[in-house]
């Protein structure tokens, strides 16, 4: 069973950290990804660029429009994700609790819906 871990955090707070702190957090994610891989639980994982690099696409009245964004007032933005393989939700939650992003941000754990 696959689970998607959405990593929400304060992107600006991260980018305003000193370089060595940023490097330490990146290192913790590399270690986490390695632990996942070695346990045979890693499917995919990536960090996302800052939300200001993103675009929003909406299809309105048959015409797709691209806009800058997302612009949200939320303190936390989607900053990365992991897709993991786990036997059940308990195992997925256990992995989520080990994710370095859990310490400062929020992790949303969602089962991947299998369309048969």
């Amino acid at each position: 069973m696959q689970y998607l871990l959405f990593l929400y955090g304060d992107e600006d707070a991260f980018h305003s950290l000193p370089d060595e702190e940023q490097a330490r957090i990146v290192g913790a994610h590399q270690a986490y990804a390695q632990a996942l891989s070695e346990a045979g639980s890693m499917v995919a994982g990536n960090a996302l660029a800052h939300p200001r690099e993103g675009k929003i696409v909406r299809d309105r009245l048959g015409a797709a429009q691209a806009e800058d964004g997302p612009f949200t007032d939320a303190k936390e933005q989607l900053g990365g994700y992991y897709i993991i393989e786990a036997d059940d939700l308990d195992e997925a939650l256990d992995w989520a609790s080990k994710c370095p992003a859990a310490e400062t941000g929020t992790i949303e754990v969602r089962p991947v819906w299998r369309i048969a």
Partner: protein
Amino acid sequence: MTPNAVTESARATAEAVARDSYGRLVAWLASVGGDVAAAEDALADAFVKALEHWARDGLPEAPEAWLLTAARRRLIDGARREATRGRAAEEIARAIEEAAADDDARNTIPDDRLRLMFICAHPAIDPAIRTPLMLQTALGVDAKRIAAAFLASPSAMAQRLVRAKRKIADARIPFANPDPQDLPARLGAVLDAVYAAFGADFDDAGGARQPFAEEALFLARLAARLAPDEPEPLGLVALMAFIHARAPARRAGGAYVPFDAQDTTRWDADLMAEAEEALGRAAAFQAPGRYQLEAAIQSAHVTRRMQGVDTREDVVRLYDRLIARAPSIGARVARAAALVAAGRAPDAISALDGIPPSKAATHQPYWAARAEAEAMLGLASADDSYARAIGLSTDEAARRFLARRRGAARKGG
């Protein structure tokens, strides 16, 4: 007093009674009715009534007895309503009245909490729910708080608790002490559930969070008091008191401080004394068990720091005895860490090699111990092992600590 002050004082008294005697009242009510869920409901109802009555009429002389009477009445009413469905309910109602009459005569509420704990850790109850069940029924811990600590959603945890209580009632799990020949195993299950509340994955190098440390200590002390002829509850009290005594010294400015670097003046002297005393009393039984051995290991560590005696080989030997009795992965990894501490890195690595890779893959202490052993031998593989230990840590302070150790190993290599 102003009306608000009266309400406030009624609430304060209700809370104080809840803390001290919640489990005792649930145990008594459940012992006569055989239904933990009904007992809890009746008691909850009694607390609501208490807040109304005490705020209006003033505090009763014996709040606990007041609550028991109110809960009992509610339980009898409930049983009578059920009576139309069968005679058993009528018998329960009569049993409650008779038991009440007996207790009124003695004017005491018996402490049946150990039997309540035996029920929570009964073989028919799923081991995964035993600890939450015990926290809720014996201590009245809020299901939401339990759910958060056990990484479950509040509704899922509530549902699992309800299901477990229904099983107790439906399967008629007896509210009785186990037969003497079953006692060690049944008591072991109770102690395991209590220790799980303390923090099952607790490890000095992992620095795990311990949301129920105080509750677990309370339950272990209770078990030791209510089963005075058994040494293992004392062993568990000693083990947890040793570990909990060091909590203030385990963090400095948010950073994790390993055992050997801890400021021993920040250890809680009362808890340390309680631990040594409990371990001494347990040892007098001359019947060592898992928790006594684990407490003895803690005691050996403490002796080394406090008295400067080298006890590191004693620790390894105690682990040998522990593993002979309870060969868990955690104990085998901890023994390997003890070998590293004793300067025996090659022995540690061969001990770790004996653990199946499938068990080691997600075990943080395994990789922390392995990394330390490899670093001691100047092996390049230490870097990888540190990475895996960091990746499996649940705690920011532990991650930082291991990253520092990893950096030091890189410089040394």
